[in-house]
């Protein structure tokens, strides 16, 4: 089989020549030749299929370019040919580690258009599941960071304790990964018997995990040497690139959609909790904020479990859902950052247009700026501390 070389335009030719020149450039001081390092698309550090093309000068990165699209599945186009309940099934699979959190903003946007409000019991259970998916997501991110710095034990611990949370999600929704449990106007089912006490036990185990991993990993000298002072994102640069979630709170910006811009339908204002920030902005501070976020999540879940009101779990919604014409944008604080859905309806069974604002896309867009000048081993730890999911980038 022969590969056909397509005709190159003049611009492409120029780009090719400049790339070759960058490869062949010789560092006069220590006589090293430039080279191109291709990381991915299948690399454990990239959480899937991100590809990073790094131009190196010796051990230092001169320029890095992320190549995305290896996981593009066309969500926004597919959503236009699905009915509203079917879209929920689809968007579950965007950030596949914390699935329930993907459904929430879309359902809230649809409820906003239909002017329906879920009953209080449904709102509480929705918030609990939203927080539990955050815990399941971030635990894995912490364990994965251990692998990136060369320690395999944290990922075993993470998978072990994540199972307790997944068991609880499965007990109420029926799915370990993709619950598809949120409905417009409420939830599919009520809680099973004994779930509240079991969930409290699971949260206790998660807190134990946090204490364990704090001593095992965060207090480790190697971990600190690999993450302290590396991959520093200043406040203004982070905001300019549109970072959100933990990545911007790790740079000292006190901003959380759950507290500042909470959409009706979630009950974060009923609980006593804190937004954690860290002033340093390096890899360590991002991971530290993540750990505190898991702890805070377990506290939120515990408090909400105590206050769940009784009552129905489904508001009055017609069986065949037709959303009236209009536009709505709802964003929530998802495990990876701010996630929003802009839904345009023309009064049909299916949305006319759905624009998805996913957090990881912005979080990864900072990599060319961030990776410039770092050493090759630090690429891995910086990518690990940014913690993105490929489905959330490419959609």
């Amino acid at each position, binding site marked *: 089989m022969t590969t056909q070389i397509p005709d190159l335009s003049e611009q492409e030719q120029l780009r090719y020549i400049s790339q070759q020149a960058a490869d062949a450039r010789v560092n006069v001081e220590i006589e090293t030749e430039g080279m191109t390092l291709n990381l991915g*698309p*299948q690399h454990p550090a990239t959480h*899937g*299929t991100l590809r990073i093309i790094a131009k190196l000068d010796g051990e230092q990165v001169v320029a890095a370019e992320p190549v995305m*699209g*290896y*996981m*593009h*599945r*066309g969500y926004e*186009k*597919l959503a236009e*040919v699905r009915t509203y309940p079917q879209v929920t*099934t*689809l968007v579950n*699979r965007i950030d*596949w*580690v914390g699935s329930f959190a993907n459904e929430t903003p879309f359902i809230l946007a649809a409820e906003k258009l239909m002017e329906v409000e879920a009953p209080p019991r449904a709102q509480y259970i929705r918030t609990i599941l939203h927080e539990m998916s955050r815990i399941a997501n971030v635990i*894995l991110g912490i364990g994965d960071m251990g692998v990136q710095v060369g320690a395999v034990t944290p*990922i*075993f611990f993470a*998978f*072990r304790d994540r*199972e307790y949370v997944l068991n609880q999600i499965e007990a109420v929704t029926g799915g*370990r*990964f*993709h619950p598809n449990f949120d409905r417009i106007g409420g939830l599919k089912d009520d809680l099973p018997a004994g779930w509240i006490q079991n969930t409290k036990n699971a949260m206790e185990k998660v807190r134990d995990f946090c204490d364990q991993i704090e001593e095992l990993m965060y207090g480790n000298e190697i971990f600190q040497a690999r993450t302290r002072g590396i991959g520093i994102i200043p406040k203004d640069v982070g905001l300019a690139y549109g970072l959100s979630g933990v990545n911007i709170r790790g740079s000292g910006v006190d901003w959380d959609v759950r507290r500042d811009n909470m959409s009706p339908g979630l009950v974060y204002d009923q609980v006593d909790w804190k937004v954690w920030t860290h002033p340093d902005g390096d890899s360590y501070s991002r991971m530290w904020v993540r750990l505190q976020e898991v702890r805070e999540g377990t506290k939120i879940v515990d408090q909400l479990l105590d206050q769940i009101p009784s009552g129905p779990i489904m508001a009055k919604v017609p069986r065949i859902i037709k959303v009236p014409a209009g536009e709505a944008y709802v964003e929530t604080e998802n495990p990876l950052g701010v996630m929003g859905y802009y839904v345009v309806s023309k009064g049909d069974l299916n949305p006319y247009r759905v624009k998805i604002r996913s957090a990881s896309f912005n979080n990864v867009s900072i990599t060319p700026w961030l990776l410039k000048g770092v050493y090759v081993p630090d690429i891995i730890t910086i990518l690990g501390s940014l913690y993105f999911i*490929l*489905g959330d980038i490419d959609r």
Partner: protein
Amino acid sequence: MGLVESGKTPKSLQTLLNMSRKYSLWVYQWGLACCALEMGAAFASPRYDVMRLGVIPLPASPRQADMVVVSGTVTDKMAPAIRRLYEQMPDPKYVISMGSCANCGGPYWDSYSVTKGVDQIIPVDVYVPGCPPRPEALLEGIVMLQERIQNEDMQERWVGEPIVVGS
């Protein structure tokens, strides 16, 4: 006139060979999407530890692997890379297609950018359905593949029909 020339091995020797092959499968993990997490749970978690089945999920490159688990959505952009790395694996090699997306496209059956099934690119031995399949389902798929390897006649490779877990 030897055994090598006739292409046949004595049955007892073949049983021994197959048994040692089936209990030392080196798996190359091709984690693509959601199923990669369930594959990770099956391979790296204490609950579903896969090494007790004689499967080692840690080859550094496809050149050291006996088997590849394609788990997740295969897109048209990714497909050439899968084909390329499959070609780098030494024979005999086996493929497990994990999840609806790798089997047939799954929930993205009408998407413009998704390959409808990895079997369009590489031959598949075991299909594990589910979206995503539970780790137990993947373990069952591996056990079924081991059964196939045990009963395999090296002369007649690729003749058998693919296995579907749970049918």
